[in-house]
């Protein structure tokens, strides 16, 4: 079994997970980050704040989400598979957990406007939803390439009253949307709250997003005990990793338990083709979007363009905490290709009657990998981070079907 961490207190005061993390941002943003950090550290111990968040997660987001035993795929695989159903949370993915937490922070800070980036559109939809609910004007930055492959989510954001700004610089995907959001934030820092959607960016964001997402793991722990026959914790937990927020969310509570933790990155067209988004598996140490982590870069330190069929994983970096957990060997990182993930997407539809997000299908495909190290009879939890309606068009195109 892996080496559980007995006491885990990272990040440190300056946002470092050893050499990873930190605050590599323009000076203009430092006062805003300090203000956010101080407020968050106060509020997380404030009973009224945590109660308000917990109520809204329950009454508005639909938490707790169920832990579903996947009997037909369990039968096929010879081990027990449980699905943590983030696809059933309001707006269809785990993103809402973090968004509701941060929008309460924005309210307490007295900010007048919300901005966010989005890749697949799930974080954009969740942000636009919360902005509508709390009465904030909202601007979402989205790469033109992502707008093309996630038209439904663009329309949803517009219906929710958000302004979607197309970003056509660089690779026209998530990394460029983050650059543009940061530029907006630098310019409007006094009135605007930047609601980051993953465990990336400068401190304190990776910590705040992790804490808000850790509800996934906390619920899983309780639910697993209830439904598994006498076992206290699962043997293995698997989650997909783009920026890595759903993975950190389900892993965090289990870091000090005897549980094998596996993050699955996007291998795109194959790790050897160079067309992938596997920042941990194939990347190297560097700085992107305000923190030090493993990133995809050229020999000259220029950020290289990632590829994944799944817009939510199509990012050349990863949250600094994942890089740290990799470096100490606490979490294993594997990868799944576009083909394998499409196949897992269809598999779950046919066997369990659930359309998974293509992102989550990467985690599912690990179950079918011949060298995954899972023993027969084991209990495995998959974080089913979102639902797959948004990906139906992409899957149809991949299969050469006209819909």
């Amino acid at each position, binding site marked *: 079994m892996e080496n559980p961490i007995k006491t885990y207190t990272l990040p440190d005061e300056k946002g470092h997970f050893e050499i990873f993390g930190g605050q590599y941002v323009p000076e203009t943003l430092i006062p805003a980050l300090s203000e956010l950090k101080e407020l968050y550290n106060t509020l997380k111990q404030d009973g009224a704040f945590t109660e308000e968040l917990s109520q809204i997660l329950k009454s508005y987001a639909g938490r707790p989400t169920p832990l579903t035993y996947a009997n037909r795929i369990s039968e096929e695989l010879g081990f027990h598979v449980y699905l943590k159903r983030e696809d059933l949370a309001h707006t269809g993915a785990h993103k809402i957990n973090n968004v509701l937490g941060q929008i309460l922070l924005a309210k307490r800070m007295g900010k007048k406007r919300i901005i966010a980036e989005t890749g697949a559109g799930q974080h954009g939809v969740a942000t636009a939803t919360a902005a509508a609910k709390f009465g904030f004007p909202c601007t979402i930055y989205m790469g033109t390439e992502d707008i093309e492959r996630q038209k439904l989510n663009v329309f949803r954001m517009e219906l929710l009253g958000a302004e979607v700004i197309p970003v056509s610089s660089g690779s026209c995907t998530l990394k460029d949307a983050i650059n543009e959001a940061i530029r907006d934030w630098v310019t409007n820092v006094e009135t605007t709250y930047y609601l980051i959607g993953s465990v990336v960016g400068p401190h304190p964001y990776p910590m705040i997003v992790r804490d808000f997402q850790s509800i996934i793991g906390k619920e899983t722990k309780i639910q697993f005990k209830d439904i598994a026959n006498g076992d206290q914790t699962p043997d293995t937990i698997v989650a997909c990793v783009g920026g890595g927020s759903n993975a950190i969310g389900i892993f965090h509570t289990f870091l000090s338990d005897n549980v094998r933790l596996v993050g699955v990155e996007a291998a795109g067209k194959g790790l050897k083709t160079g067309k992938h988004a596997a920042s941990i598996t194939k990347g190297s140490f*560097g700085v992107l979007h305000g923190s030090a982590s493993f990133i995809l870069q050229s020999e000259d330190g220029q950020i290289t363009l990632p590829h994944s069929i799944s817009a939510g994983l199509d990012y050349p970096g990863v949250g600094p905490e994942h890089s740290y957990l990799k470096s100490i060997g606490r979490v294993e990182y594997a990868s799944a290709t576009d083909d394998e993930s499409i196949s897992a997407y269809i598999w779950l539809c046919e066997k369990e009657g659930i359309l998974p997000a293509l992102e989550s299908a990467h985690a599912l495909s690990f179950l079918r990998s011949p060298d995954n190290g899972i023993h027969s009879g084991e209990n495995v939890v998959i974080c089913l981070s979102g639902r797959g309606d948004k990906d139906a068009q992409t899957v149809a195109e991949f299969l050469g079907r006209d819909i």
Partner: protein
Amino acid sequence: MNRIQQLFKKPGGKLIPYVTAGYPLLNLTTKLVLAMEKGGADMIELGLPFSDPLADGPVIQASSQVALKNGVNTQWVLEQVEIIRKSSQIPIALMGYINPILKYGYNKFFSDCRQVGVDGIIVPDLPIEEAKDFVLLSKSNNISPILLVAPNTPNDRIRTISQMAGDLVYCVAILGVTGEKLSKEATLVKYLSRVRENSNTPFIVGFGIKTHQDVERINRLSDGAVVGTAFVEKLRDSNHPVKTILEYVKELKGIK
């Protein structure tokens, strides 16, 4: 003493043009720098292009993309400085984002900078929290780390930044990215007076400066004006880049 330290011993406002290395064409960089000097520039800010320049507006971003397509990397930029040094002693500061420098290696970067004759380094995404080793290595190689201050930087932090920098501080004139509009006079006066009171080193000001009047205004309140986006725009729109740049520097200096 390096060329930046010598320059800022002299009183009076300075003009510091910026150009992205390798833009618009590889063979123009050394010529443009020498034309800037000939036109009356006091110091040069030479941009190391980066794929994701998040403190820059669309104009400098686009110039970085072109430079990268032209094949520019850190080593090439250092070679250009070496060529310039054969015929010029104008102070040169490099401006680049942290990742390419990190990838090049801090030790090698500063030792190569020293060898070719770089005098200063500006890194817009390296606040003092992350800059300790960087600043030490920079100083030990006789290169001035030019640290940044923003309009919302508190007074005590301005003091810390200026002490850490030692030779020169770069004040970002506005809340925003490069190429946006300069603030109103009263806002600038208030901000730069606050820097004057709290900084024990000379400081230069950049972002949003485009005309001779802007340069004069800024130089009344500081020790130098950096003009960046406006130069890149001139280059983008000109068929005779060297001549255009020479004339524009003269215009900014108020030389008829």
